[in-house]
């Protein structure tokens, strides 16, 4: 899942380790999310959004096909 986590993190000058500790996961988990190798749980997505004071949709783009013709 595409995401803007790295951009948000860079904007506030946080390291991956800082963010990892802030949301109680490992630094590797933050790295995996930023590299699109791991999709976080809803709970972690909420934690990240709350941490950056934004909406989940601002952080994550699931690239859902919302065209009703494709249903």
């Amino acid at each position, binding site marked *: 899942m595409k995401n803007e986590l790295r951009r948000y993190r860079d904007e506030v000058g946080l390291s991956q380790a800082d963010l990892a500790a802030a949301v*109680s996961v490992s630094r590797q988990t933050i790295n995996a999310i930023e590299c699109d190798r791991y999709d976080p749980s809803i709970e972690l997505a909420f934690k990240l959004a709350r941490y950056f004071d934004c909406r989940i949709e601002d952080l994550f783009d699931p690239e859902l096909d919302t065209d009703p013709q494709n249903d």
Partner: protein
Amino acid sequence: MANNSSEHDWLTRRTRYRRVAFGLLVAGITGFALADVANYPVIGVAIYWLGFAGFFAVRRWAPMELFDERDCSLERQASYDTLRLAAVALVLLAPTAATLEEVGYYEIPPIVEGAIWSYAGLFAVFGVAYLARRYRP
């Protein structure tokens, strides 16, 4: 946003707890092997169990979660891959060996027969665990 040094401290402590937990596990297994080689099998088993007990104790009583959701996800994926591998082995091995033995072409060695039954038992346990998860209230 929290203080960076306390966050780093949290990560460092978590890493330390994880190292202690896995260290106990490795010590238990190594101790078992060494004691067995030295002909102290009972002591070896005691060391082995102590190692595992220590691992679970650290995991249980550490002041933070030592395994995050990605660790759990990786564990699930690895378990799934292992089961698929076991399924392929069972599907190919069991009927082939049984048929060859039936036609008198091959006699299944006890170790292979044991492996087949172990695989079958693994899937029986999986089936029970799956149903228990599915229908738990």
